[in-house]
Each structure stands twice: as structure tokens, then as C-alpha cells.
């Protein structure tokens, strides 16, 4: 079974962000990065499937500047077979521009499955997986929380608002992975050592044209500082009074 997992390098969301002087990007000074949350789940799913339905190959693919090699090495340390960097100095915001580059890379790869996280935690668009599937004309199921594969086809469950649906699809297919399906493994020391010898190829990304452009980035206004109105159950009447007369939400 041959599986590609597309992963994105995103800023560590615990950081305090500031806006760069161009006002359309984040200040990169001291920025720490990590693999996107959902991409970690996708990689774990890929590794487990390869183990279960092996022998197999798991290829991690990331589009971005050389800094993405760090998360590709992490993917290799977790167990991926090889890695591909689609090199570009600046990752566009436009999902279609990115999907075009990924589709170019993946088209001739002979993959049984192409996995994505359901969205990148930074740009929070959640469009690249389904777009790549369309450009490749492959069946696609998005935001899945359960997955079973059998003999050239699969069944997935996806959560909706207040409901869930069961979805059947043939392979090859593109799947985007939601949280809760599998907890990403930690790389072992042995894995980290082995990753250094695994192949990591770099080639230029064939980005599509972008027509979704960042015009401005701003930090939202800070919430007013928190206010503790009292201690213990005796503060409850005051809370209700404030909710009714000040916040007017009851």
C-alpha cells in the first residue's frame, strides 16, 4: 500500500503573535514552528494503515521554505519511508494555488491513499485536501473520524453538526482527517536516528496562480481584562444580576 501524507509547517499557536511591518504577514522574529495538529493525526493514520495493510510506503510531502524540512524529518522519525519538499519561499494563502502544486507532485505517484489533516491550524481554510482531490479527479471524503479499509475500498465516518454520516469510497482516494481518530505517536530515539538516513528530496513547487490574497493582518482587539466578581456560591446572585442587566445575555 502506497500512502502520501501532506503535512504543513505552522507556527506554534501558543506563541504571542505580532504583525510584520508589511501588515500582511506575521513577524517571523523568534517564531517557533511545528507540524499542524490535524496533519499529525493524518500521518498517524497513514503509518497505522501501512503497518496493518503492509508492505507499504508512507511518503510525507510538505510545501514551503527549507524550514519545512524540520517537520519532514519529524515525519520520517515517526516512521515515514521518505519525504518530499516542494520548495517555495512563501506559502500562499490561496488553497487552489497550493492544491495545484500538490496535484502536480502526486499525480504520477501511484498512491492508494493521499491523506491530509482536515485543515491547517494557521490559515484555517480547510480547502487544500478536497481541491487536490478534484484536480486529480479522485474520490474524496473530508473530516473523517473513523476509517476502515478492505480490499480496494473503504468506509469512513464523518461528524456533522449533531449527526454523523457513514461514507463508502473506492481506492485510490483522498481523505482529510479530523481529530480523535488516532493519537500521533512520539518519535523514538531509534526513529530519530533512522530518519537522518532516510531520503528527503527537494524540488521546486509548481504553484498555481493565486486570486485569494492577504490584504491585511491585524490582531483582534484584546478582550477587556477579566474581572473576578466574588468568591463561592454567595457570588451567584451578583453574577445573575450582571448577566441580566450589564451583559444582557439572559
Amino acid at each position, binding site marked *: 500500500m502506497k500512502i502520501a501524507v501532506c503535512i504543513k509547517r505552522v507556527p506554534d499557536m501558543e506563541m504571542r503573535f505580532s504583525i510584520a511591518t508589511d501588515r500582511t504577514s506575521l513577524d517571523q522574529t523568534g517564531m517557533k514552528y511545528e507540524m499542524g495538529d490535524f496533519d499529525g493525526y493524518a500521518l498517524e493514520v497513514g503509518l497505522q494503515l501501512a503497518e496493518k495493510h503492509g508492505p507499504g510506503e508512507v511518503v510525507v510531502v510538505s510545501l514551503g521554505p527549507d524550514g519545512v524540512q524540520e517537520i519532514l524529518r519529524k515525519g520520517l522519525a515517526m516512521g515515514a519511508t521518505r519525504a518530499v519538499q516542494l520548495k517555495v519561499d512563501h506559502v500562499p494563502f490561496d488553497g487552489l494555488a497550493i492544491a495545484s502544486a500538490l496535484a502536480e507532485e502526486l499525480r504520477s505517484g501511484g498512491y492508494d491513499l493521499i491523506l491530509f489533516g482536515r485543515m491547517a491550524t494557521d490559515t484555517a481554510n480547510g480547502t487544500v485536501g478536497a481541491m487536490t482531490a478534484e484536480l486529480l479527479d479522485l*474520490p474524496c471524503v473530508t473530516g473523517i473520524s473513523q476509517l476502515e479499509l478492505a480490499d480496494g475500498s473503504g468506509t469512513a465516518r464523518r461528524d456533522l453538526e449533531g449527526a454523523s454520516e457513514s461514507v463508502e469510497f473506492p481506492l485510490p482516494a483522498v481523505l482529510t482527517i479530523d481529530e480523535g481518530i488516532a493519537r500521533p505517536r512520539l518519535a523514538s530515539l531509534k526513529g530519530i536516528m533512522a530518519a537522518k538516513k532516510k531520503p528527503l528530496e527537494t524540488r521546486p513547487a509548481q504553484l498555481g496562480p493565486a486570486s485569494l490574497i492577504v490584504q491585511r493582518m491585524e490582531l483582534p482587539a484584546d478582550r477587556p481584562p477579566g474581572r473576578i466578581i466574588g468568591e*463561592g*456560591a454567595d457570588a451567584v446572585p451578583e453574577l445573575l444580576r450582571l448577566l441580566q442587566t450589564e451583559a444582557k445575555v439572559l
Partner: protein
Amino acid sequence: MSTFLAFAETRAGGLRKVAFEAVTAARQAADSTGGGEVHAVLLGAPGMAQHARALGRNGADLVYVVEHSGLERYNPEVYAATVSERIRSGQYRAAFFTASAEGRDLAPRVAARLRVSIASDVTEFEVQNDAVIAQHPGYTGKVNVTLKLTGSPALISLRPGFVTPAEQPRGARVETLEPAIDPAAARVKVTELTQRSTTKLDLGEASIIVSGGRGLRAAENFKLVEDLAAAIGNAAVGATRAVTDDGWRPATDQIGQTGRLVSPDLYIAVGISGAIQHLAGMRTAKTIVAINKDKDAPIFKIADYGIVGDLFEIVPRLTDEMKKVRSHG
């Protein structure tokens, strides 16, 4: 004058609230650019056409109805082919979807088929002469991104709950369309739809959310949270990632960076310390109440109203008092 399209989402034979939101947004866009027509697309099993009139209330001039016995449930490939074909033949300035689970699946497929970009999870928008400007919360709500869509048609998926459906009656004349591909030929098939609970309010649609964290100490103590939500009446119950990871609550209840992003009018955090991961999912709530025993917990830094103390005393009292308020209300 430009024409705008809205995708009207349905489930189990009925329209969803987000359908009215999409039509309302399209009406706003049309009215802001000279009062052009709004068209809606409605797909489903036979009988769907009866809902067209309801879309007229929010400003649809024309409703394209696609009825087929094979469309009892969502069919991503038929929907994507049919909606993109309609957009292609319609000269639309923009098409509106919502960033619901179904909309997030459908909209990027349509965009890719049309080779245009899409602005996702949009909270505000403005149609200009040569572009559509859209506000999009990114970086787990920590950065407001203003996006410019230069292509035409511009595709937009709206964050659910950010457009208030408004009455703007229009004719809603009906035209029927055939599915662009035979539903039986679709590769991806939704074989089953399971409603989790018909009585439970969805987190994304609730104006009040009561949410519980590790401070509740055990799964069974979530009853305190549920009782409070029941006393309020129209409240949904959420949880932190720590709680869903421990299996106290289903994963679908998780509010946070990797769970649901919510913006209710009132968010009551019970026994929640306020990890960044959680704050990412609820920091845009209008009013935040926190109940926690640790006065230094980060949740108190963003809570409009905090009460420090033992939640096992405070929450039952709040439930009692809330019942009185609601019965007089």
C-alpha cells in the same frame, strides 16, 4: 447589477438554518451592488421543492431545485458537479456557501472545478467593483485576516451564525434542474446518516454554551453542567480536550483548537483552567463566565465575570437561581 448564488443546505428532507444565512448573505451582496437577483440551489430527495418558498422569505428571486431519489442523503460528487455547472452557466458575481461540515466539504470541490479560489469561514464581506473583500479569523482566532478575492465568480463560505437570517420577501420562482451526474454513478456514497440526538442543541447553533473541564473530577459530575444547561433552557454542553481525551465526553463535544470553534452570546466555563488550546475555540464568545477554584487560572484573564471557589457548591446554586430567573423571564 450583479446576480448572486446561494447554496441552500438541507438535511433529512428539511432546510438547515445555514441555508437561510447563505441566502440572506447573497441578498445583502445583491442589494449592496444595485439590487440584482439572488438565486438559490436546493438539492435533495423528491419533495424538496416545497422548501423553495421559505428561501424566498430571505430574498431568493429564483430557486433551482434538484430533486432525485438518489439524493436522500448528501452526495458530494453530484452536489459538486451540479452546483459548479449552475455557477458556470449563471454569470454570478459571487456564490455563498456556509462553513458547516457539509459546506466545508462541498465549497472547495466546487471552487477547484471552476478553477477559482474560495475565502473560507468568513465573518464579514464586502463586494467591490473589482474584488470581494472578506474577513477571516485565522491562527486559532488570534489573527484577523482581511482577504481579497480577485477572481470571478468569487466563492465564499460563511462562518455559521455570523449572518442573521433577515426577512426580505422575494418571489422565489422555481426552476427544476437535473443532477449533473447520475447519483448512482457517484464514487463516494453516504450510506447512512445518524442523528446524535434530536433534543440536543448543536454547539455551533447554541447562543449559550455551558462547558466543563477537568475541575469536574469525574465523568459523572458532568451532570452538574447538564443540569445548568437544562435550567438555562436553550444551552448546549461543551467540554475541554482533556475531558474528551479522557473519554468523559464524546470527541464531538470538544471546544478548542482541534475541536469546535464557537462564538456564543454566553459561555460558562466550569472547572476549566483556560489552556491556550481551549481558549482558541471560545475566545470570541460575547460574554464569558468562569467558575474555578484557582484564582490564578488563565481563564480568569479573559472572563468577563469570574467566581473563585468550589464549583460543586457554586454550580448547583447557579442552577437553582437560574431556574427562578428563567421561570420569571
